[in-house]
């Protein structure tokens, strides 16, 4: 199949071999899990359990909030011992409302919805399937954690004809999708077919990066189940797994800036998401665990582990033999777009594709030196931006100037920082600038609001003053008239008398 040219990107050293040959192992149920109520893009879920209550595995503990949100379920059975703010897997180190469950050791499932086991065409409407996916709390497991049901609902807003399944896994180290495709290809393909049915699309494209030949083989075999599925090997080039870029590569459709891929008729889902959909429909199981790659030269036994959500990173690392004494950095996600973990007590969440303990030789940080304008960042930028110029403007404090040349079109892939021979943290500048810009935006909106309120108030008081004045004038006139009347009664009387 023909592939389309995608600009930019970088060649990385992948180090996937650290964990790519380790089959997925199930982690034993931890003693305790801390499940944050916001593990997804959108508003946090609202807790529906109380301290002291027993919950079964798969029981709803957080109901989706307003707008875009997702359900959250208990990942083990046991007693809720706290619903409180706990450390979240976010580099800020801020806390988040979290349900803490102490295991009863039984790992007993709660009552689950009736599975749909019939073959295609499914005896369920797309709406029913969507509702089930939403109820199961499934979000994009590639890392973005966007609620999947919202994406499946796109067909009611846009005309969708293509479903792209993202098996690119372009981040170094991360091999959880690779292993899933090798070991659970049939389940993934089943999930893909369910989603395709729910979306009523004509084309299904499964895209896998060329550095995963075994996964390609397994998926090709499994995809024979449905003739409308095409399997595509895409070049190994970061950030091929970016939904917009992958879509461009396999269909030639370029998603307009600030828009969703649905705008050009396509929805992109990750392979692990497809498997989660299959589990939710075929077994009724909500999303309570995910496969996490634990890797990096700092980990004693790199592995791909199926982890109950909410398990602490510490428990997970202990399961993988602990750390060598050397690591310098603990990362959640991949090394390109992941974020430092604030603490080993942070939990594994739906979006955690990896937990990496990296050593200095892997991060290869260096002292920053002056920019030599080599232009490598410009060539590497998959968004078509000029990082060197934007960074210059941001350094100077000219955020609006940076915005004017597209800083907000940055996809934060980090290719520019990676390739910079002077070790300039370009991506960091852009996330700083964009954070600041949105704060300014918020402020400006608030100022506008205040201004309009003040204006309204002024107008109202002016109006009221006007009315008062008019009333006063009227009163005065009336009074004057009355005074005149009382001053001239004799004539009146006279007149009357005459």
């Amino acid at each position, binding site marked *: 199949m023909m592939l389309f040219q995608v600009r930019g990107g970088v060649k990385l050293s992948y180090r996937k071999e650290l964990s790519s040959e380790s089959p997925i192992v199930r982690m034993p149920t931890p003693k305790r899990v801390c499940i944050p109520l916001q593990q997804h893009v959108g508003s946090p879920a609202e807790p529906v359990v109380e301290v002291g209550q027993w919950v079964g595995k798969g029981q709803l503990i957080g109901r989706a909030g307003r707008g875009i949100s997702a359900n959250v379920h208990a990942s083990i059975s046991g007693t809720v011992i706290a619903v409180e703010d706990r450390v979240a897997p976010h580099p800020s180190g801020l806390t988040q409302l979290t349900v803490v469950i102490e295991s009863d050791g039984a790992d007993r499932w709660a009552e689950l919805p009736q599975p749909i086991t019939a073959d295609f065409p499914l005896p369920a409407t797309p709406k029913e399937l969507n509702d089930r996916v939403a109820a199961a709390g499934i979000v994009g497991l590639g890392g973005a954690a966007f609620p999947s049901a919202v994406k499946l609902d796109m067909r009611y807003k846009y005309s969708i004809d293509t479903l792209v399944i993202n098996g690119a896994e372009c981040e170094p180290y991360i091999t959880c999708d690779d292993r899933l495709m090798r070991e659970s290809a049939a389940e993934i393909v089943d999930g893909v077919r369910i989603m395709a049915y729910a979306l*009523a699309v004509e084309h299904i494209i499964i895209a896998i990066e060329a550095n995963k030949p075994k996964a390609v083989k397994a998926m090709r075999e499994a995809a024979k189940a449905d003739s409308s599925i095409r399997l595509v090997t895409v070049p190994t080039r970061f950030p091929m797994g970016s939904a917009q870029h992958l879509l461009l590569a396999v269909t030639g459709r370029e998603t*307009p800036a600030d828009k969703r891929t649905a705008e050009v008729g396509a929805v992109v889902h990750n392979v692990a998401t497809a498997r989660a959909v299959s589990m939710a429909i075929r077994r009724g199981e909500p999303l309570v665990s995910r496969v996490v790659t634990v890797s990096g030269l700092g980990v004693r036994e790199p592995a791909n582990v199926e982890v109950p959500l909410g398990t602490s990173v510490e428990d997970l690392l202990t399961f993988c033999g602990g750390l060598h004494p050397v690591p310098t950095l603990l990362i959640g996600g991949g090394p390109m777009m992941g974020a430092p973990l604030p603490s080993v007590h942070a939990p594994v969440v739906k979006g955690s594709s990896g937990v990496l303990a990296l050593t200095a030789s892997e991060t290869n940080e260096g002292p920053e030196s002056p920019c030599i304008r080599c232009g490598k960042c410009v060539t590497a930028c998959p968004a078509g931006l*000029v990082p060197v*110029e934007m960074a210059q403007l941001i350094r100077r404090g000219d955020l609006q100037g940076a915005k004017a040349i597209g800083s907000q079109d940055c996809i934060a892939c980090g290719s520019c920082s990676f390739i910079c021979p002077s070790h300039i943290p370009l991506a960091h500048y852009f996330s700083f600038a964009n954070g600041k810009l949105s704060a300014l935006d918020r402020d400006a909106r608030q100022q506008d609001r205040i201004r309009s309120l003040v204006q309204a108030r002024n107008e109202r008081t002016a109006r009221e003053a006007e009315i008062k004045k008019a009333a006063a004038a009227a009163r005065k006139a009336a009074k004057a008239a009355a005074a005149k009347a009382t001053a001239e009664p004799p004539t009146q009387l006279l007149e009357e008398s005459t």
Partner: protein
Amino acid sequence: MSTLVNRAGPFTHTATTVSSTMVWVMVALLPATAYGLWLFGWPAVILFFITLGSALAIEAIMLALLGQPVGARLMDGTALLTGWLLALSLPPWAPWWIGVLGSFCAIVIGKHLFGGLGQNLFNPAMVARVVLLISFPLQMTLWAAPAPLGSEAAPSFMQSVAYISGQTPVPEHMSAATSLGLLKTEVSRGISVEKSTEKLPPLFQMATGKESGSMGESAAVLLLAGGLLLMVLRIISWHIPVALLGTLGALAALSHALDPSRFASMPIHLLAGASVLGAFFIATDYVTSPVSRSGQLLFGAGIGALTWVIRSLGSYPEGLAFAVVLMNALVPLIDRGFRPRVFGRSWRGKSLEVKSQPRIHI
């Protein structure tokens, strides 16, 4: 174990550094340089090392004066490369102070007065060459005839020291005009280019470089090999060299076809003078060239065109240094006008419009 870092990712980094890049450029220059040093003998060797040494020394002094980390910055190799490129552009038997003064112009005026590494508008080596050429036209246009080390004509080490120190003038019979210089002189005497071309060394010799000129003007083939190495290593891209040589070649071919008595042929333009050195090593200087691909194409084409204009219509036989410096001045403008297209946006910056109206099916 500290897990907190105060910056966003990525947490992996390419192995390429500024100094590794500079080292590779020097490696690419090595064959042509070694050949040039051999071809012009001890005087060239002495001048080469004086130029490089003074460039390093002046850089160190400037860094110390400006309060920058001397050791780290000196080791990045940029000053060494500047000195190297300057040395390649000088007449190989020029007196020692030409080298030192050149290094001073390049490092102090060309680089640090603009704010140091990465801030300079003009290519430092070319600034130095232009200053020297205008200030010392005699010394800068006295070219030695090839006298390879070990040959009979080659001066001894002591003799060479005498030439370079300026104690003994370079004897008349040891100097020769460059090919481009010869053509220019003859045209000014009313002799057609066609005729004077016959006096030039054959093209093969021009390509392999056994002719008079600066070291960087001699071995076109070796410089080309070095340039191709840089392309293979992805240190430079094809855009600037191809645009430069393509434009220069096209103009030369066209003008020669129209009036062969006035304009030299394409191979002479490409092989003689500093065309190849300029295209692969000078115009591609990161700091002073545009950052976008489209900008680089325009920049390269501009240098090629200006070089041809100065060589063919101006009064200097070689115009590459001027062309580079002139185009350098346009780089900020080019960078502004030639940005890549942003993903999902039109060239004018508007969000792309969806072409076909979506077909609704529920």
